[in-house]
C-alpha cells in the first residue's frame, strides 16, 4: 500500500430500498486533494461516513490511515477530521467555546491549546468574531468555524462533505484558498462537492453517479475523455436552435448552459459552417460561434449521459 492513506475494496452500503454505494474501489495517496464529485443522491455522504468509521459497510472494506474502519474505528478517529454537510456545531455556544469544547474532547494539551486555538482563529479569519455565538455567524463563517474545529487535533486526513454548499461565491473562493493552504502543509483532503468548477482545484477527482464511480483521474485527463470537439455558441431561441443542431450530421451531443449551447462534434472545422448555415436557414440569429476547450462540467454531463444511454 505504501503511500495510500485511504483504500476501499468493493465498499458497498445498502439501505432498505436503495444501494447507496455500490462496490467502490478507491485509493488515495498521502497529500492529495481528492474530489468526490456527483449530483445529489450519488452516494457521496454515505461514502464519507463509512470512511470516517461512523457507518458500517454492508459489504467490502475500507482502510483509512492504515486502520480498518470496522475493526479499528477509534484509531482512525484520532487521525482524521470530519466536517459534515450540515452545520453541526453548537449554535448557542460562542466561536471560542466551540473550539475549546473540541480541543477538550480531543484532549489537546493545555499549554498547546491556547496557541493552537489562536492560530486556527487567525487561519479561519475568525479572530474578531470569537465571542459571537455560532448561530449568529454567516453561512461562510460557520463553515470556516466548522473547519477550524475539525483541525484542532492536527488530523492527517480531513473529510469534507460538500463544504461549500450554500455558501456565497466570495466565501467559497476563500474557503478553497484555506483548503489549498492545508494541502500545501501536507494534509490529505477528501472533499465531496456537487460543484464541477471546484473539481479543477483537486489533484484527482472521482465522478460518482448512483452509487458507483464512473471515472477517477486527474482533472485534465477527465476533460480529455470527452469525445469530439466542442463548439460554443449563443443563439436566439435556445430550444429550437438545440433541436435544429441536434439533427445535423456529425453532432454528437448538445448541452445547454444558460443562454449558451455547447455542441460536441466530430470535427469542429467541418461542422461549424454547417451549423451556422442550418440556423440561418431556420431564421435563428447566432452570436459568437467558436471552438472551445471542454470544461469539467461538459465532461461529466457527457459521461453521465453516456452511462444512462448504456443502460437503455
Amino acid at each position, binding site marked *: 500500500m505504501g503511500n495510500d492513506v485511504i483504500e476501499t475494496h468493493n465498499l458497498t452500503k445498502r439501505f432498505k430500498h436503495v444501494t447507496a454505494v455500490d462496490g467502490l474501489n478507491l485509493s488515495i495517496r498521502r497529500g492529495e486533494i481528492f474530489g468526490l464529485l456527483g449530483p445529489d443522491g450519488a452516494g457521496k455522504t454515505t461514502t464519507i*461516513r463509512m470512511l*470516517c*468509521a*461512523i*457507518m*458500517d459497510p454492508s459489504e467490502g472494506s475500507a482502510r483509512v490511515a492504515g486502520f480498518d474502519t470496522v475493526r479499528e*474505528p*477509534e484509531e482512525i*478517529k*484520532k487521525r*482524521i*477530521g*470530519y466536517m*459534515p454537510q*450540515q*452545520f*453541526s*456545531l*453548537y*449554535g*448557542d*455556544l460562542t466561536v471560542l*467555546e466551540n473550539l475549546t*469544547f*473540541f480541543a*477538550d*474532547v*480531543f*484532549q489537546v494539551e493545555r499549554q498547546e491549546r491556547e496557541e493552537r486555538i489562536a492560530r486556527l482563529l487567525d487561519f479561519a479569519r475568525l479572530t474578531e468574531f470569537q465571542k459571537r455565538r455560532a448561530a449568529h455567524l454567516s453561512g461562510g463563517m460557520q463553515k470556516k468555524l466548522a473547519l477550524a*474545529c475539525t483541525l484542532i487535533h492536527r488530523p492527517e486526513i480531513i473529510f469534507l462533505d460538500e463544504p461549500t454548499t450554500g455558501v456565497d461565491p466570495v466565501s467559497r473562493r476563500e474557503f478553497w484558498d484555506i483548503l489549498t493552504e492545508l494541502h500545501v502543509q501536507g494534509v490529505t483532503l477528501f472533499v465531496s462537492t456537487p460543484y464541477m468548477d471546484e473539481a479543477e482545484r483537486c489533484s484527482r477527482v472521482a465522478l460518482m453517479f448512483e452509487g458507483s464511480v464512473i471515472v477517477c483521474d486527474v482533472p485534465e485527463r477527465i476533460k480529455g475523455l470527452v469525445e469530439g470537439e466542442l463548439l460554443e455558441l449563443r443563439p436566439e431561441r435556445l430550444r429550437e436552435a438545440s433541436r435544429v443542431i441536434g439533427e445535423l450530421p456529425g453532432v454528437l451531443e448538445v448541452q445547454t448552459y444558460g443562454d449558451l449551447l455547447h455542441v460536441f462534434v466530430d470535427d469542429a472545422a467541418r461542422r461549424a459552417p454547417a451549423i451556422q448555415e442550418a440556423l440561418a436557414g431556420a431564421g435563428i440569429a447566432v452570436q459568437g460561434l467558436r471552438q472551445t476547450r471542454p470544461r469539467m462540467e461538459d465532461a461529466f454531463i457527457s459521461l453521465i449521459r453516456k452511462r444512462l444511454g448504456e443502460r437503455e
Partner: protein
Amino acid sequence: MIARTLTIARKELLHIVRDRRTLAVMFFLPVMQLFLMGYAATTDIEHLRTAVLDADRTPQSRELIEAYRASNYFDIVGYVENEETLARMVDDGEVRAGLLIPTGYGEDVAAGRTADVAFVIDGSDPNVANTVYAASQQVGQAQGIRFIERRLGVKAEDMPGVEVHPRVWYNPAMKSANFMIPGLIAMVLFTLTIMLTALAIVREREQGTIEQLMVTPIRPIELIVGKVIPYVFVAFFDVLEVLAIGVFWFGVPIHGSLSLLLLLAALFLMTSLGIGIFVSSVANTQQEAMLVVWLMLLPSIFLAGFFFPIEAMPGFLQALSYLVPLRYMLVIIRGIILKGVGLEVLATQVVALVIFGAVIMVFAATRFRKRLE
C-alpha cells in the same frame, strides 16, 4: 475519561443556562404542578352547593335543613318550589345535591313516626358522590338520634351502645395535600428527568452535532454520563424546591428521614435517567421523543397509583403495575414522609428499584452506539 465527561457536562450546562425556555420549564413547571395538585386536585369535599325543596314548611323541616347546613358539608344555595326546578339545577350543575322534604314530614316527626326525606346526589363524579352519600346519611341519623333523646328524655351517651372512635393515622386531618405532594415529588423526579435527558440527547441527533461527536475519541459512556450530570442536579434542586414549598406552604409534615429520602431519590434517578436515555435512542427528533415520553408517562402515572389506589384496580392492571418503577418510588416517598418508616419497611421497594435501575441503565447504554444506521 473523567476529563472528557466533565467537558460534556460543562457544555450541557452552557446549553441549559442559555436556553431561557427550558430553564423556565425546569424550575417553574414543578412549582406550578405543586400548586395545582395542592389546591385543585383536592378530593376533600366541603361546602357542596345544595338546593332545598321544602314542601312541608314546618319548624321540624326547618330544623332538618339547619342540621344539614350546620354540618359544613352542604351550602344551602337556594330553595325551590318543585322537583322540575331542582332537576334543572342539577342538570345545569348549579347545585350538586338536593334535599327534598315532603309534606307531612313535621307531622310524622311530631307523631313519633319514621319521617322520610329524599336526598338527590349528582353522581357524575363517584368520588364526590361517595362522600356526599355518607354525609347525607350521617346528618339524617344524627337528627334521628336527637328525636329519640327528646322523646325518651335521655341523653344518647347515657344509653347502652357502641361508639367507634376512629383514629386516622399518618394524616389525621385527612388533607389531600399531604397525600398528593409526596407523590408529586416522585412524579416530578420521574417526568422531568426522563423528558430532559431524552430531549438533551435527541437534540444532538436532530441538530446533527452527534455526527461530529461520533468522529471524536469520546466514548458513549462519557457522552451519556456527561450529558445527564447537569440534569441530576436540576432534578435534586426540583425535589428540594417542591419539598420546601410542600412543608412551608402546604404544611406537609416530614415524619421520616430526609437523608434517606434523598438517597432513595438518587436511586430512583438511575431508572428515570435510564428510561430517558433509552427514549433518546429510539427517537430521531425532539417531537418524536416527546411523544414516546408521553406514551410511557400517562399509563405509568395511573398504574403507579398516583391518583387512584392500586388495590381498587382489576387484577390484570394490578399485575401490570409491578412493571411500573414509579409505583415503588411512590410507596417509598409516601412511606418516608407520611408514615416516617425506614429501610426495614421499604426494603422490597428499594430492591425493586435497584433491579429496575440496573437493567434499564445497562439496556440503554448498550443501545447507544457511535454509529449511524
